[in-house]
């Protein structure tokens, strides 16, 4: 392989990794507030479909992104109703949300299967796009990819340097202590569920707005679950999420490239790669420290006071 062959694969890796990056950051935000939301796969596919539908109806990709974010956030709030108001089990509620979301997107989307749309198109960023190699890999993508570059640093700044970030972390580590410090932990969790769901929704939107420009069933294909795994891999820190997302993007891009070149490996075996890699990535992070960085109150509901 020469450098000319590697660059397009790396560029494709960034593109394939972007929806996973959005979803991972979204789930990370929610989990840092102590809420485990396994509905990522469902929220993501709802984002994919609603973005497609909004684009199909309005023709404006930015409206589509906003719609997908609102719908993803709304599903996050459903998880909130079950777990924050009614004290439901977070694991089961998230699973139910995924079953519901996947079913809903499939049901509403069936009449539109195969419909092609426009959406975002790649463009070269001024100056940055002209850097040799790096420019080609990172700076000649669409607007949503460019937006995803500023998210992880912003995320980090928010968590580490703002009052609200502190309130979020306190709620995830020790809700009672947060409450004693004058924070309303339930309110923080509501906000985290909505904001996290919105990010996951945008991740889903990327698939129909920029990645494929069409709608078919089952477009997320487990990316939501990969995002859940990557939060663990990233030790709940945004920087490592970028690494993980592009690793998966790389494997997916590589697998597509092999299929396109007509490799003799059957496609079902190639399709296993990301799922097998998920197990591998989790093994790797557990070797570095079991459950390291997990918020202490993750998955634990805040009981109502008598």
């Amino acid at each position, binding site marked *: 392989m020469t450098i000319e062959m590697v660059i397009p694969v790396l560029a494709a890796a960034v593109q394939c990794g972007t929806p996973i990056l959005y979803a991972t950051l979204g789930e990370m935000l929610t989990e840092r507030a102590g809420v485990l939301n*396994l509905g990522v796969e*469902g929220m993501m596919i709802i984002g994919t479909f609603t973005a497609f539908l909004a684009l199909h109806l309005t023709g404006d990709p930015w409206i589509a992104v906003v719609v997908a974010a609102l719908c993803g956030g709304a599903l996050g709030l*459903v998880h909130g*109703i*079950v777990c924050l*108001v*009614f*004290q*439901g*089990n977070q*694991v*089961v*509620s998230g*699973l*139910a*949300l*995924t*079953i*519901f*979301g*996947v*079913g*809903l*997107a*499939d*049901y*509403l989307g*069936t*009449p539109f299967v195969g419909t092609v749309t426009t959406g975002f198109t790649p463009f070269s960023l001024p100056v940055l796009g002209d850097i040799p190699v790096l420019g080609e890999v990172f700076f000649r993508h669409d607007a949503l990819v460019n937006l995803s570059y500023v998210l992880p640093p912003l995320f980090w700044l928010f968590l580490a340097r703002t009052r609200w970030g502190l309130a979020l972390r306190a709620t995830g580590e020790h809700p009672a202590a947060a409450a004693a410090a004058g924070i309303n932990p339930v309110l923080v969790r509501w906000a985290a569920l909505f904001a996290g769901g919105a990010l996951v929704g945008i991740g889903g939107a990327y698939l129909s707005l920029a990645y494929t420009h069409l709608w078919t*069933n089952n477009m997320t294909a*487990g990316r939501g*679950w990969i995002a*859940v*795994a990557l939060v*663990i891999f990233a030790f709940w820190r945004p920087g490592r999420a970028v690494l993980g997302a592009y690793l998966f993007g790389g494997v997916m891009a590589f697998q597509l490239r092999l299929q396109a070149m007509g490799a003799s490996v*059957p496609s*079902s*075996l190639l*399709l*296993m790669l990301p*799922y*097998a890699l*998920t*197990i591998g990535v*989790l*093994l790797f992070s*557990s*070797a570095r420290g*079991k*459950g390291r960085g997990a918020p202490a109150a993750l998955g634990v509901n805040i009981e*109502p*006071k*008598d």
Partner: protein
Amino acid sequence: MLGYRVVKRQEPLEWGSFFIFLLALAFSLSVSGLLLAIQGKPFAEGILILWRGGFGSFVALEDTLLKSIPIFLCSLGVAVAFRMQVWNIGAEGQFALGAVGATWAVMTFGGLPGWLLMPVMFLCAALAGAAWGLIPAVLRLRFGLNEIISTLMFNYIGILLLQYLVFGSWKDPTSFGFPMTPIFPDGAIIGRLFGRIHWGLVVCVGVAVLLGVFLRRTRLGFELLAGGENPRAARYARMPYDFLVLLVMGLCGALAGWAGCIETSATLNRLQPSIMVGYGYTAIVVAWLSRLRISSIAFFAFLLAGLRVGVENLQLDLQVPAAFGGIIEGLILLSVLAGQFFDSYALRRRGGDA
């Protein structure tokens, strides 16, 4: 909350859970009906077709009973795992591996007489399914790997493995390119018991009785139930917690594997990708609703099987996609989860005495 306050109940609400379930079912069906209305389909008629399709006639009940067999087998294992707080989402993949194991046995030992081939087929299905459950269990115990994600990934991998075999070396050369294995020999096809109901029903009853006796009458069964209530206490009481997790995951995999074996042999008579219709995910809903009462598992498996048959009818009559079933199942689970709040909490009017 709006003039009311929340009080923890001393005793769980009697008959409450069933009442909650009925309310949740009504809520879920209403929302699903609204979704039908959104697409310009009749609300009331849709619900009626759904009901009649699943429970309204002898043929419907027969279909429902047939579908409840694999759901019941998958749910048993999942329910035991959930009770242990082992979040096994992997019944779907274990079902796929069971189907693969059974088919492998039939394609390898197809010449054996039926009385020998049938046990070999069930054994291979159980082993393959159990392996698919045990790997995530070992990964959890040895490396602390989150079993929710690993079992889910094993679902994807298992289904792709099934496709790889059926699209590849196991494909029937006379199938005109369709992805399916050759039809099983007579000795490997589970026969009919009465009507269209096959012997798989007897397998269900046998497994249910054995599991019931095991859970209630043996020390290990007691430890299983107790271990789930509080893993740390179980460890202090020197219960073999790790062994219990392995046992539960192996059992769950074997039972889901049998479900796959029975579906392949009795329903399709061959292996093809259409065997994967999501019974393993329905089993999660059933397991949570029934809380490890075997009679409840049977009841909810039958009910959700009926909803599945009803959705198939909706597909035919109103061209509603099969995904409609997922919407109903997800809604039922969400609303039951919310409703279970009232099992342990009560609302009291503010100011009154509790």
